[in-house]
């Protein structure tokens, strides 16, 4: 038989095999979801899946750290999914792990809100348990999907925006112009933080003027370019800079530094990334950074994974949990140069914090206890 014919036959066989697998999977979809959630799973049958948007952003790297620490404590292997910023990569890698045989307990920091339904359905079909962090469509309710979608969890974006805006406004004497550099324009996380900014200005600081809002896509370089353009446009009218995350703050600070304005302008942002901590510690630019928020990637992933784990082994029954434990918002703390030291202790002992999480449960561990239920609603006037 010629090589070409052999190849053609192999292709046909592979095609038939794929079709059979799809039928089998479709069959699973209709039955396995219900069956799997009623029977507690054995610890030795589990694998932790830790899906992040990329592995180099400090926040996502911390997500992985939290998953690995919890996996080590509980003796469960951890599979990391690096989505490389692509929804397609994220979904296909998760599906490949689900097909691997073990029951998956999944934490996903979704690339886009729209990925959540596909991931949830795939995990449910494979009899696993999933907690989604940060992004999901508002109409995807864990309680409606069933026990396999254990919870959706996040920190309040509105609280973050208010927190940083208060620090910035006070630092500039509650009057003057500020500029804002949000993340990707259609990101819920960014939109809620901007809503917090606008609400704080409208209700508490009417003399602080929001000169311009330029979405910078979570990209330090775009933030740098936008900040350069806004410096050219407004010059010394800019007294403060609000960015939706610390990555963009790095770009903005570089632009103001090049313009010789770093020690005349104040900055606030969300995330308290390591470079931000360093900058605050060494009082860069006459204490240029005046406000941050504290929440951690390793805390988010460990809380998410631990919640899903408790459901998988039958310690909690998601269907009996109150709404706020299925659609949850965890505490976010406001950080200023004065109280910075209080928050640095956590990063030095991630394993110790995970011990506390296991002892106190996913909803009662400081400094990030459960504070409210979702979804987080943006008032129309602050959109």
């Amino acid at each position, binding site marked *: 038989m010629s090589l070409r014919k052999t190849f053609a036959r192999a292709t046909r066989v592979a095609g038939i095999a794929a079709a059979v697998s799809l039928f089998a999977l479709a069959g699973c979809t209709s039955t396995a979801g219900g069956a799997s959630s009623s029977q507690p799973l054995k610890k030795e049958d589990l694998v932790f899946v830790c899906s992040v948007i990329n592995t180099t952003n*400090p926040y996502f790297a911390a997500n992985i750290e939290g998953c690995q620490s919890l996996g080590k404590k509980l003796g469960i292997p951890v599979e990391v999914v690096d989505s490389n910023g692509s929804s397609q990569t994220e979904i296909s890698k998760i599906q490949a792990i689900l097909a691997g045989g073990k029951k998956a307990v999944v934490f996903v920091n979704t690339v886009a809100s729209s990925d959540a339904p596909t991931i949830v359905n795939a995990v449910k079909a494979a009899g696993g348990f999933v907690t989604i962090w940060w992004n999901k469509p508002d109409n995807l309710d864990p309680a409606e999907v069933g026990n396999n979608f254990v919870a959706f969890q996040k920190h309040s974006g509105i609280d973050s925006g208010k927190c940083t805006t208060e620090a910035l406004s006070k630092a500039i004497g509650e009057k003057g112009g500020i500029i804002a550099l949000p993340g990707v324009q259609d990101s819920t996380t960014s939109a809620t933080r901007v809503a917090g900014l606008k609400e704080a200005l409208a209700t508490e600081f009417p003399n602080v003027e929001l000169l311009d809002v330029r979405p910078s896509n979570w990209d330090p370089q775009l933030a740098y370019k936008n900040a350069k353009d806004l410096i*050219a446009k407004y010059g010394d009218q800019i007294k403060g800079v609000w960015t939706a995350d610390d990555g963009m703050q790095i770009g903005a600070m570089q632009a103001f530094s090049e313009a010789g304005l770093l020690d005349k302008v104040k900055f606030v942002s969300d995330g308290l990334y*390591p470079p931000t901590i360093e900058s605050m510690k060494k009082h860069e630019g006459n204490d240029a950074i005046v406000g941050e928020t504290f929440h951690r990637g390793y805390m988010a992933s460990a809380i998410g994974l631990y919640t899903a784990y408790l459901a998988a082994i039958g310690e909690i029954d998601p269907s009996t949990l109150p709404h706020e434990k299925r659609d949850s918002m965890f505490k976010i703390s406001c950080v200023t140069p004065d109280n910075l030291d209080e928050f640095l202790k956590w990063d030095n002992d991630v394993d110790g914090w995970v011990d506390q999480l296991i002892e106190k449960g996913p909803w009662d561990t400081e400094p990030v206890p459960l504070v409210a239920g979702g979804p987080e609603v943006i008032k129309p006037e602050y959109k």
Partner: protein
Amino acid sequence: MTNTLAKPTGNVSVDTSELSSAGLTRTRRNILSGIGEPVALLGALVVLIAIFSALNPRFATITNLQNVLNQASLPIIIGVGATLVILIGSIDLSVEGVMAASGVAFVLMSANTRGGQDMGIWAFIVPLALGIVLGAANGLIYTLLKVPSFIVTLGMWFIGFGIATILYGTDAYPELTNETLTQWAAKIELGLPNVFWLAAALVIVAALVLRYTRFGRAALAIGNNEDIARANGMPVRKHKVTTFIIAGALSGLAGILATMQMGGTSNHIGEGYLFLTLPAVVIGGTALSGGKGGVLRTFLGVILLTVLNNGLVLAGVSPNFQSALSGAILVVAIVAAAWSQRGRLRIAK
């Protein structure tokens, strides 16, 4: 063109004076068509500058000029390499991957917040060499294995990105600790940012090489008709590999400069540059089919795009409309600039 070269057949008497007069007209038309597009592009740029200046007086200030030129510099440097590659009828999509690999290598070999040793001059040489190696790999695979450049360089994009990701690891974001490095790019010398002087020097060198050297003329000849170039004994493969090496080196340089500009880097440092630069090359009038165009046109194309984005921000256009408006203005500007040339445009279907 074809008619003038065709050999007269039979007893046809040829009026040489008529021929030479027709030739002269054609030469004049060729010269006009050669400068027509850049002049029209320059016209579009002037109109944009006039409109933006009217909308916001701060647009036409020295500070903003320095800002625009600072922002345009990296796309110009990458654009020089991209233009050379496009002139030979190929394409280089590996820009962002090469930038990432070089940028991360540079920061890790310089004094940075992650610690480690400052390698001095090697912190520049090694990342540039990395760009050259990746560029050479592009050229060699493309010419020896006859794989389309589109595919090879797409693969090399991800290889470069992969190298950057491995080098970067999962430690904290590394920032340069040497302020001379972080402030160099935007530092003003003789009224303009350092990085722009570097970009301008590269454009001038590339323009002179294209105009006055055998290498430059060969690039145009290969892009025009590779078979004829080869039949004339031109070392086509060598020229192509050299072109990709130059493009790789320039992407590597851009990775280093972007890192210096940001004061640090991650493996995402190159993001967005490819799809800023390629349109600028085409807008400048370099044909994607090869053989026609030049780096001065690319320079104009980059400046046009940068002015457009900067002007829209200064004019206070809402971010919701900026993308659509920027696209619409661009289409109008290009149609206006290319109007006189529309009959001779080499449209790639």
